[in-house]
């Protein structure tokens, strides 16, 4: 069948009409894929740590504030899933439906260690939809019990020449474990870790009690103990130390100590729709800027700083690069 001369216009017009139609259908489909009633039910906030620790407390402070800033009134329910050193919780976050009803707090770089150790856990931190950071990263410091015969870092190093120094720490998947392994390597201290403690309070008290010789813990965990005169801080990994009379990373000539950080990021399952991501990210940042959140977080020395998803992704990449350098030491 041949076409009449005007057919090409008709055909073009048909094509335009068809194109417009398919464009419209495509647009409608993508709109249907996004839930404009979001959020329409409770949001699960996974915490891959046991209840009661600093991590858990921070999420519980943020959760009610988050409820205030979401576009609709729903509950944000903290859900502790500490199993497998946190691997189960992160895995659950990773495998959840990307519908905005499951988010989770993840600690870095502990989760990298977990990902390597528990390959079967089936999560990939690079694929998680990162929403923001939960506060500024925390530095670590090295301390001993107040009753310890060791008074300075040099004495600790001298001890390390005679035998491995025993450090109390969490299980071999936690950020504290990673910080201890990396920190002792950087400081060239021969170390042996006593693992298995259930949280920072537990392993810091272990060092105070004398289970081990020393401990490497977040600054926020050791400072209250220092104030109550139960620990002595020998060195801080901060670039600019906040402990009077204690050498910092710069004074020790080890600036890389300042890269050993405890970070807490909030993420959602992979492939979260863009506008839900935007809603959650904005609400989280507002929650963290809320005066009550700021004042409560200050009590455990966490400074709330707004951050974008892109900044969170950048932090992940930096951490992954740093972690990769130390992988062989951490996987022993």
């Amino acid at each position, binding site marked *: 069948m041949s076409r009449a001369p005007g057919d090409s216009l008709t055909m073009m017009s048909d094509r335009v009409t068809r194109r417009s139609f398919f464009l419209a259908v495509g647009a409608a489909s993508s709109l249907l894929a996004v839930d404009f009633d979001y959020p329409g039910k409770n949001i699960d906030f996974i915490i891959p740590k046991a209840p*009661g620790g600093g991590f858990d407390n921070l999420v519980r402070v943020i959760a009610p504030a988050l409820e205030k800033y979401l576009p609709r009134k729903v509950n944000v329910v903290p859900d502790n899933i500490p199993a497998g050193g946190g691997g189960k919780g992160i895995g659950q976050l990773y495998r959840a439906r990307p519908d905005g009803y499951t988010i989770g707090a993840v600690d870095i770089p502990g989760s990298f260690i977990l990902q390597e150790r528990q390959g079967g856990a089936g999560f990939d931190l690079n694929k998680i939809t990162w929403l923001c950071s939960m506060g500024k990263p925390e530095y670590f410091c090295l301390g001993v019990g107040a009753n310890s015969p060791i008074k300075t870092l040099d004495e600790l190093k001298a001890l390390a020449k005679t035998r491995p120094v025993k450090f109390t720490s969490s*299980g071999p998947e936690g950020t504290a474990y990673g910080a201890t392994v990396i920190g002792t390597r950087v400081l060239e201290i021969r170390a042996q870790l*006593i693992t*298995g403690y259930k949280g920072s309070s537990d392993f810091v*008290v272990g060092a105070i009690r004398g289970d081990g010789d020393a401990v490497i813990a977040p600054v926020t965990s050791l400072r209250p103990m220092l104030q109550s005169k139960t620990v002595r801080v020998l060195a801080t990994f901060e670039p600019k130390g906040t402990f009077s009379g204690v050498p910092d990373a710069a004074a020790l000539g080890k600036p890389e100590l300042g890269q050993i950080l405890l970070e807490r990021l909030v993420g959602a399952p992979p492939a979260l729709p863009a506008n839900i991501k935007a809603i959650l990210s904005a609400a989280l940042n507002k929650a963290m800027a809320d005066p009550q959140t700021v004042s409560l977080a200050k*009590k455990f020395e966490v400074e709330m700083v707004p951050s974008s998803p892109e900044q969170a992704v950048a932090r992940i990449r930096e951490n992954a690069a740093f972690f990769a350098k130390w992988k062989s030491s951490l996987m022993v």
Partner: protein
Amino acid sequence: MLHLWLSGIGGLLQARELMFLALGMAMGLFFGAIPGLGGATALALLTPLTYGLDPFTALALAGGVMGAVPMGGSITAILLNAPGSAPSAATCLDGHPLAQQGKAGLALGAAASANAIGGIIGTISVLAILPIAKELVLLFGPPELFLLAVLGLIVVATASRGKMLRGLIAGVFGLMISFIGYNDITGALRFTAGIAYLWDGVHLVPALIGLFAVAEMINLSVKGGSITKDAKAVAITSMTSGLLETFRHWRTVVRGSLIGTVVGAIPGVGGTVASFLSYSLTVQASKDPESFGKGNIEGVIAPEAAINAKDCSCLIPTLAFGIPGGVEMAVFMGLLVLHGLQPGPLMLIDHQLEIYGLIWALTGSCVLASFLGLFLARPLSKLTLIDSEILVPTVMAVALVGAWAVDRNIGNVIVTAIFGILGYLMIRFDYPRLTMVVALVLGAAAERNFHQTTMMSDGNLSIYLHRNVCLVLLIGIAALLIAPLFRGLKRAPAVVTAGLGK
């Protein structure tokens, strides 16, 4: 110090604080009674509601909840063999047999009074040792905790001496179950068969709901009838008889309270160990051990006294170092932080008024809840007359939904069902559940502490001989192992049949 004690009471005796205390008590009683809920859920629910309150009032509310939960747990443990919380499982062992004999009122009355007296003794003990709380917590490290776990296991094993072989088998089987899941020392996942639910091991509360409540309902379903067939006994039972029994067995109350106080103060051990240890030591000390498990009132008094005593002393490691003794304490810590009270050594110095107020709130709630329990003893005991055809499906539904509600994990339902069938088989084939429960609670901790001790001492076992508390514990272990020998030599060769039928 006395003026601080009095200030603490004075602060509590204000209308607003008393009102919140009463509200917390009512919630604690209710939540304690429902299997799977408990104090942790109640506290988690209340925490957001405390935002506008000052710290002292918030602690009055929290103390109200925590002080009343054990009484709530005792009610369902006695009436339905369904422990409202893990520590109440020990009360099932003799409390439910009493209910089956139509003496639920007696058991509830004894539980209520033991609760109150145990709480008061626990409070006085804690107030006395609070000034040295930090030092006390620091006394117990991995070597001490390992020996304590061994002591607990031996106490329980030797308490089942009429069925020692089966008791030991149940115990080691419980140990095997306790090894399932993530290992803190090596980071290895063991015996999980690839099931993500088991990464955390077998969850204790759903397992206990199954072993006791569900198993008992299966048993009732097979036997038919009601929990008790003696309606007359139920009608004449009085709450005062339970109260009198508690005073008659004052040594059991004191012993249980002291065990609860000491065990509660040890970080990470928990209330379940306190109640089972108190029960087992009471069996050991009794002149009539074979009557336990069949409705001996001391089998109710001993664990109940321990449970409430431990509630106060559990605060010590929580407040002193931020080490929670269990989930309830962990949630409580979250509430503290929300009110600007950071657990740690400084809290014991800077917030003494709040701490004493909390301790008095706990005690007050415990006593009030006990009075309420005494008052409700007779009407509640009529539940034991309900026909099994109605009771069984109702309790099964509450048990399984309650198990799910523990942490909103549907795997708990499967665990409860499996342990329900296991518990029933143990009843049928006469294996004591007591040893299995204690092993389940202590197994993972024993392993972790042993490995940590090995790391501390580079494998040198003499570490146990160089620490004072370890030496005391070793002597205790030796005494427990040798004592049955002496008893066997002293007695005529009559068979000793310890009554741990459950």
